[in-house]
């Protein structure tokens, strides 16, 4: 399970984005950002999000691993649709008319 999550991070998610740190962030800043995120998403309340944050920190905490991740995480073969952030899905309440129109359409 953990391996899968790490693979996900490597392929699809930028750990810097997860922790909210810029490219040139050093060890200290990365650690601060991690602790802040853990406060916001404690493991007892949001275990999945916490695991995601911890995995991101695991990638970034070691400078060499961080550097290698920077080069090797780029995946030119990944589906282009994966460029879209997951949060880009908005859902607006439009009232019943648009829905009913689909039902009436033959």
């Amino acid at each position, binding site marked *: 399970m953990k391996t899968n999550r790490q693979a996900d991070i490597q392929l699809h998610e930028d750990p810097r984005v997860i922790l909210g740190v810029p490219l040139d962030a050093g060890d200290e800043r990365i650690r601060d950002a991690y602790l802040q995120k853990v406060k916001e998403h404690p493991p007892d309340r949001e275990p999945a999000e916490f695991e995601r944050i911890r995995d991101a920190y695991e990638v970034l905490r070691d400078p060499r691993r961080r550097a290698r991740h920077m*080069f090797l995480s780029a995946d030119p073969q990944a589906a282009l649709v994966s460029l879209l952030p997951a949060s880009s*899905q908005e859902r607006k309440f439009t009232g019943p008319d648009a829905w009913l129109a689909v039902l009436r359409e033959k």
Partner: protein
Amino acid sequence: MKYKQQTKLPSPPVHRTGPIPQEEDVRALLAKGKTKPAVELAREIHKRCGGPESEALLVDAYAARIRSLLKTGLKEEAKALFELVRKRYRSAAARFADVGVLVSASSGNLEELLRPLNDPALLPEIRRAIEEVIKSQVCDLSALAECPSLTADHPLRTAAAALLGAFAAVTVGPVEQSALVLPEVSHRGPLASWKILVRAIAYFFEQDDAASERCLGIIDPDSPPARLIPALRTMLRASTDKRLTPAAESLVSQVCGSKVSFRRALQALDAALEARVQEKILTEIQRAIAACDLACPELLERLRQHISVRALQLDLPTRKVRAALGGASLKNAYFWRLYARSVESSREPIEPLICAQWEQFRRHAVAEGWFREKSPEAAALYLHMAERLLELPGDLLERLSSKLAEHFSGFQAFYEDQPPLIQEVEAKYKKVDFYFLSPSHLFERACTMDPHREAFEQWLNWARQESDGRAADYVAECWHRALPLNSQPLLYLMESAEKRGALNRASAFLAQAQKLDAVNAEVRRAALRLLVAQTGRHLRQSKPHLVERDVAALEALPQAQLADRPAFVVALRWASAVIGGDAELASRFFGQIGRLLGSSAAASLLCENAGAFGGLARADFDRHVPQVSLDPPESLVAATARVCVLGDDVGVPFTIPTAWHARLWQELANAHGKLESRQVEMLGKAALRTNQKELAYAASAAGLELGADQEARFLLLRARALPEWEFDRREDCIAATVELGRRRRDMSIINEAMELRRGRRNRMSSFFDWLDLENWNEFSMTTEQIHAVLQREKHARAFPKDRHARFHVPFRETVFLDDDELENDDEPSALDDTNQLVPEMGQPRGKRPKRVHRDLPGQGDLF
């Protein structure tokens, strides 16, 4: 035609009861949906029989015919036929009940359709037929809720009204769970699918996509609510191949904005890229770019870069791609990283060119602030580039690098139409520095910027294999200077000095290493080996007094007292006695060795190797060692293996007399479980030193029997023992060894396997010999593949003799595909820029057929 012929059979009308002739034929035609010939045949039958049974059959055929007409939209014809049949046949009234409902419904008159429901004595089949029509045809809930032909409190009206309210509520805002219970709507009633639809929409807005999808899965696909499924699935991001209707498109756009359209455009582009059809790709690129511009303009540049790299991979014409993109993509660090990774993962990577691409990335990354010029990140990049170069055989790397340096003038073509900021970065590096073609330079930069043990280890390993001793010494010295607390460089320097015969210098390095970490196993072992080497040198120089001193020092080492090492020390004394001509003393030492090892054969073998190590002539050995019977009561293979382990222990490469070969081979074949794995492995390695490959092969067979823990080691031994021409088998064994080593985190076995492969590759004669080794840099194997290799090798116990009678199927098969599926284009390809840079690399590859791999037993991806 067939049934028409059947219907024309002349038969007189006979009124009778009982089974009707040809009834089954009519029913069969109806079952097949052939209602018209069924009616004709039923009429013929009724004309002949004229009874109530034949009339019932005919009415049934008419009923099916009317349903068929309604289905095809011929409402008027259906209605006329219905009226005609109802008037003509008395039995039709009862049998036509449900057809009547359908005919009424076809007129669109809901009131007329529902009116019978007020009748408490309504026949159940008519009620069912009406409900079926409601279930499958009624899409206007408000009309149902307000239908005047039903009483106001009729359950259908109340259910429709409740659904209408709930539908409006879930599409206007969040609703409580209680609002979705809808007790007015029976889950068995005709409006059950509506109830599920309302829940699906509510879950959709709650972002509970799984629950929403579950609901969609149980909606009756023939009911009107099912019309919303494609739109909802699109919004749930589940891929759908169905084209949406205009109303559904409008709904998706209103609810999810333009991002869903963008997502769909990207999915279509992904599919086109997968299909590799040029025109389709170009069209979808345009659509995706337009959709991105509308929905996520902030992603536009990144999308362009990804598309550019994919187009380069597919060798699509640059100008057309650029036109479809609406301009050139930005050639910044992000692009170069993506491009380098793309070429790295291609089937025919050109390592020097990849390093040139990584250099471009480095320049832009530094300029854009990804990392500093001298930083751990830059060091990691240099290491990565060096690792790439190490994939090539040394002489090939040299040739390719010199060609690249000769022809390569940079990536200017990529910088056309780039913003000044990007061009400035490129302009800053006017003079091309080809440092990136030299592993030595790359390692040095990496180790200077971020000195750490792993980097120095890699550098030293490379220097040991590729360069002379001085280069490796230089690396070890750099390592020692950078990380003075590491003992490894000192041990290497000790070994190097020892090889050069500079034993005093070697001792000095050892002393430094001992000062750092005297209890380190490697240091202790090095101390033993150095003393042994020193003793050997003094033996060869015939200096018995110095030998005596060395042996005394050896005996004083605690590590010299372990295992069979005391026997080796005595063997050195034996050699010294022989050199000194003291036959009696030599005989005494020989007897002592025999007692220590518990075998005269082992003593003989140890003395032979110790003598060779000390420079003894063969005649001296023969004079002082009794002839060993090759048929001793004890196991010869056990004695030999024990001595081979001892040789490895003290750092002296022992060999096995060729005269022992047959006996050892025979015993090995029957040695099931009698030998330890290290003994078998050392025996095999000793056999290889005198090129006794059959014996080494037999050792690998015996080792593979020992169980899972040792499989990697014995697969590697098998790879070494195979004849040169067993190329595929050796490749498989090495790849399986590496993968097993990876899984067991055994770096030493991985390194050995890599060295074996690299060493063999260095013997390749030409560029194309090397290229023929498809996938040579791909070691990864699945568990099934490893198992297949292991099974094959375990079963192949006999040494392969005949080159032409190869008994196995190569584990990786190579098949050829032609390139027809890729459309040709007269325009220069996007990759031509690159190919022109290195003509000697680019042109011949263009002529080579596409080669793809297929993994047995299942077929893998072709590209």
